[in-house]
């Protein structure tokens, strides 16, 4: 009988000692903790794969919102729908509560968080080969630089967040745009140094050294650093990996012009933009191409094939047709392009023109014009090289990553030229978007941008 009593008491006594161990459970089997993630090349690579996968996902800022909202705001596109949040963009009268403004802000910082988390993880002693570690650090820096480039060009001064510590990040005020730009340049230069020349995986879905250089050229052009912009663009243009493709092939996934593309992950789409731009049946295109852009095409410009006409009872509309497949399924033949060679020619042309190398600028512009099947300019119109450049960029890069907005902004700050549609708003042009209302609510140290 006594034996029974002790048998019962032993677990009781053990209980006292082992409670803490007992409730210390391992993590869930369908999720990992950070320590478990960066244990080898494969799991570490899964993190950047995750970032790209969420970048290109439906509804993501980088999937369609920047292209569409940015396109509406800069006059590339018109809007035929009745979503007030988009109407605010096409009317260029944004409210701080605009849902796309809010979503874009949050998405950019989400990707920055992912990149920061990966960079922090890589500083820990991990069992990742040095080649992979370099590749991943380069990619994380490139993603972070890419996001900050858009943040500062859309909002001006924004908080510069470089860690995952929410306790301090939640109270960060705006960082001046100059500091943001310096951080972008630093990230991209490190990415250039870290990334290999060859693409690390099939297709061009993960950045290599030239991707970083091409993005650096885009940033340096925006900042008026003509010399470095030209040098970086030249390095990309001269590399044998990249060739201009015929107009019909530019956005195909095998295009040799592509410097960086995101793989389409959802089986529902070929590209999200194709789905968004191409109307179903006889429906009215939701985001038709704006008239000034349509009118600027010269006769015979093959780039007119990047638009298509739709006529119905409401009228005749042209919609963007760079991506030509509306739905997913086979064959999956288009990937969303982030950086391509055509832009590098135009970057170099502008950098050369501003450095006084008009002949070189003309050659670059003509490379793009020839590919489009329009006659080369005999020499750049010296009287207005900027007009020529702006027009060529408009026709070449419309609906690509808010390029028109970047051009308008750059022309205003670097060339003191006001481009339409900002000319209509000369009295009070909004060069930045409003800081989302919810962000002001949740961070008392954030101040609203001027004009909102």
């Amino acid at each position, binding site marked *: 009988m006594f034996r*029974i*009593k002790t048998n*019962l008491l032993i*677990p*009781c006594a053990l*209980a*006292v000692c*082992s*409670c*803490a161990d*007992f*409730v*210390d*459970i391992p*993590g*869930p*089997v*369908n*999720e*990992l*903790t*950070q320590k*478990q993630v960066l244990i080898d090349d*494969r799991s570490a*690579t*899964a*993190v950047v*794969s*995750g*970032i*790209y*996968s*969420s970048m*290109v*996902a439906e509804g993501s800022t980088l999937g369609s919102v920047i292209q569409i909202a940015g396109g509406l705001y800069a006059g590339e596109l018109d809007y035929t729908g009745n979503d007030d949040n988009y109407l605010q963009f096409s009317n260029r009268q944004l409210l701080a509560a605009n849902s796309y403004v809010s979503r874009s802000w*949050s998405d950019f*910082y*989400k990707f920055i*968080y*992912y990149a*920061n*988390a990966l960079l922090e993880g890589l500083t820990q002693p991990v069992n990742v080969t040095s080649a992979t570690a370099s590749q991943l650090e380069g990619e994380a820096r490139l993603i972070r630089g890419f996001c900050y480039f858009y943040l500062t060009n859309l909002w001006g001064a924004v*908080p510069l*967040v470089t860690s*995952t510590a*929410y306790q301090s*990040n*939640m109270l960060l005020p705006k960082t001046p745009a100059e500091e943001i730009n310096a951080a972008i340049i630093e990230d991209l230069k490190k990415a250039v140094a870290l990334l290999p020349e060859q693409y690390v*995986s099939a297709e061009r*879905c*993960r950045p290599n050294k030239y991707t970083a250089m091409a993005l650096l050229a885009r940033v340096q052009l925006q900042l008026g650093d003509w010399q470095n912009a030209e040098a970086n663009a030249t390095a990309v243009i001269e590399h044998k990996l990249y060739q201009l493709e015929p107009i019909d092939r530019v956005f195909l996934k095998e295009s040799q012009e592509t410097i960086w593309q995101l*793989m389409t*992950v*959802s089986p529902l789409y070929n590209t999200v933009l194709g789905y968004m731009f191409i109307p179903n049946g006889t429906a009215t295109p939701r985001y038709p191409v704006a008239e000034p852009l349509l009118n600027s095409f010269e006769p015979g410009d093959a780039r007119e094939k990047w638009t298509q006409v739709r006529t119905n009872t409401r009228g005749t509309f042209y919609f963007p047709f760079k991506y030509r497949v509306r739905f997913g399924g086979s064959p999956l033949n288009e990937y969303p392009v982030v950086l391509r060679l055509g832009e590098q020619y135009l970057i170099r042309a502008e950098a050369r023109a501003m450095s006084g190398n008009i002949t070189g600028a003309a050659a670059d512009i003509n490379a793009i014009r020839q590919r489009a099947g329009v006659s080369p300019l005999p020499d750049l119109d010296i009287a207005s090289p900027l007009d020529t450049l702006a027009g060529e960029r408009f026709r070449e890069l419309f609906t690509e990553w808010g390029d028109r907005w970047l051009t308008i902004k750059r022309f205003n700050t670097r060339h003191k030229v006001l481009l339409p549609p900002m000319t209509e708003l000369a009295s009070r042009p909004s060069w930045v978007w409003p800081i989302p209302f*919810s*962000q002001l*609510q*949740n*961070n008392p140290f*954030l101040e609203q941008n001027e004009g909102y």
Partner: protein
Amino acid sequence: MKHIYCPRGKVCAYVYAISLLLALPWYGSLVRAQDNLTVQGRVLSAVDNEALPGASVQVRGSNQGTITDRNGSFSFTVTGSSANLRVSFIGYRTIDTTLTLPLKKELLLVLSQDANVLEGVTVSTGYWETSRRLSTGNIAKVTASEINNQPVGNLLTALQGRVAGLVVTPASGLPGSHHTISIRGLNSIGSGNEPLFIVDGIPFIGNSLSQINGAAGQQSPFVNIAPGDIEAIEVLKDADATAIYGSRGANGVILITTKRASTGKPTFDLEISGGAGRTLNTMTLMNTQQYLQMRREAFRNDGLQPNAANAADLLTWNPEHYTDWKKLLIGNTAFIGDIRAAFSAGANGNYMRLSGGYRKETNVFPGQLGDQRMSLQLYSGHVSKDNKIRLDFSSQYALYQSNSVPQDLTGSIFAAPNMPVGSDGGGGALEGLLSLRRKYRTASHNLINNLVLTYKPVNGLSLKLNAGFNRMQMDETSVFPKESYEIPRESGNSNFGTSRVSGWILEPQASYVFSKADHKWEVMAGATFQETLNNRNTIAASGFSSEALLESPAAASETAITQNTSQYRYASLLGRINYTFRYRYVLNLTGRRDGSSRFGPENRFANFGAVGAAWLFGEEKWMNGLRFLSSGKLRASYGLTGNDRIGDYQYLDTYGSTQYPYQGVSGLLPTKLFNPVYGWETNKKLEWALEMGFLKDKLRVSVARYQNRSGNQLLTYPLPSQTGFAGITRNLPATVLNSGWEIEMQTHLSKGDFSWGASLNFSIVKNKLLAFPDLENSSYASRYQVGHSLQIRKVYHYTGVDPQTGIWQVDMDADRSAIVDLTPKYYGGLSQNLKWRRWEMDLFFRFSRGWVHNYLYSLPAAPGLRGYNMPVTLLNRWQKAGDQTDIQKFTTGSTDASRAYGTYFTNSDGAYTLMHMLRLGNLSVSYTFPAIGKPGKTKTFKTQLRCQNLFTITNYEGNDPEVTYLGFLPPMRMVTAGIQLKF
């Protein structure tokens, strides 16, 4: 726990008790000890001749007395040659008798059951039992007979209105529908408010296992427990009763105990019942003429011309055709069949009970849809000859199968009345009609095993081990054939879900009871180890090669899988000290130290505890003068409990898989910001209560007042997105106060063959958000307001229909500043029991008053839209300038009027109404035939008619005051007839 359910023979027992009382003087025994005389005896229950532990035996007019021990025995000393003895026990009739001393034999006192008391005699907290008389806490008990009188399939339905402070809200009237349950209001802003459920000592999951919802929404997990197998349900409310559950006790505890074996001769019980049910009243809808009139008027109002594209109902469909969609879709009769058999026997210290049941309940939808449950329960045990070792084992298994559709068809009764069956272009209502071509099937399994090993090495000491495990599994399949879509697809699609929850618990305990003179001590210490594993996955499958293979995910060309697993571990030490002085003063101290895996390593442990006290002032000498007051007790308790109803792993920096792989590599991303240091929500409960009995306890009244303060609220605290995420789980010093009054009354009168008993419970509740730092700037700003309940809605103030424009108007300037509080103002239940000879009738009314959504809130669309029929009450609409009415003009949609409905009216206080309701929740009539057979081998036969929701008196204008949403099936009115055999 004592089984006191006594369906028959009360009168015989009474006579038996009287005869024993008369014989008392000769049954006594005397032991002379010094100058005093020792009175020794036992107190038994007339119901089953079992011992009654905890009964009070007092010498009137003196301090002498005691309560009976667990064998029903007592012993105390008196002086003198006679004594006026009062023997009382709650739930039984008090006996007053005069003893002539010395006694010659051991005194045998048999108490007959007092039918006016609907609650049981002993109450349990799961860790200890106490008599209601000496209890320091608030424990309500619902007995088997109260549950059995109701022909319902879900035991939670049977609890509606039965317990003060308990609110049970069914999601709809469909079998298997989920029930929201809360005890004494909502405590938590961001975490769970469900109580802790314990079934036979094992924690039971209170949340649904559904992942793919069917017509009934999420399936209630309680469908896997047969109400007929339940012995008692105890509801633990105050700190004294719940603090022993520590971090799990904040929202109260519900103990469900299944039927035990009884010793004695083998008995066989058989119960068969069958019946039918119909949906309670639903609103009368427009007929074809009225509907077409509404549509034409909508076009006129909007200045539009109907054409083939926007008015098929007016131009294409037959204007004479009429389909009563309501009758077709939800107007069918549901059939209920229930059969239960139990065998019980015991001898030589062994006892067992085996019971099995089958229930089938069809629903009111067309077709052969319905639910069924098969259940099996075994209880067996052994007591050693010396009474020192006891072993109790129970096992129950139930399989619940539901065969239904994915969507509640009630939403589809609003289809246009002239819509041809199978037509397209019917508007949103068509979706529901197509739902009939779809399938939703579930199979839920539940296994609960429990073993209790008790060892009593010496008198007063008891060592106990409670061990058990349970496993639940729910498999769901929903099938959407291609022709079930408005525009038929190339192939159908299906969803599959599997949820598995398994857990075990181990609870060693030791308790010691000793008394000395007027002092009695009960000490208990124990520990708990518990683990729960959750595994849920779903498969969404499409691209099937054949429609015949829709139920096989292997035949799908595309599948998307989700998986969710979690582990919960819980360990704690607990203890209790109970001190009773002269059976008048009781002090109860409880404490618990809890560790839970739901919290990070730094905050994993916390302490909880409570102090409870009771003063039985009715036993004081000076009370003898107040003859009308037969008993009185004042009790109070205060303590701290916690709420750990948050998800698992919230403190970890987890990475989850992205939905789609990228270049063949499945992505991994951080899923949240993590806060490793958050802790428990705490709930401080204060209660005091006065319990009194009048006129020999013919009327008993208790009044309880409670104040529960929930602080350290665990919330998703909003963060600026620059941190990468929108918020973080964090403790906030927000405080919620639940306070209220609970009044309970019982009375019983009898004369000759007739007896009447009544029991009333009445609750007044108040819920208030006391503090919420920086609420205005949080994402909770639009939902809560300091100083108001957690169940408020912040809405526009409704100002009526503009007599000029005919459109619903709200006060836009005031924004959403109007507040509607959906906390019930009061609620309660009144049950009555009438007996006349062999007839017995039970009536149960429940009532409530409070703000609820009115029917206008959930109209299928703004009135006048194509394809949406409306209640005829809407014919009282605005028609021309100057009309004064509360219904806006008809519109075809995309107009100011339709926006005014969807955007403003439904978000205004015009969409709410102050409802009061009195419902005859249950009526049960039974007749017991005279027993036949030889004594000891009698057979009894009883017939019973049971009705649920017979009638309702209410000011509520819509479908049903308890299920206010027009698209959900209202509760059912059910009538079943049954027979019970016992031999």
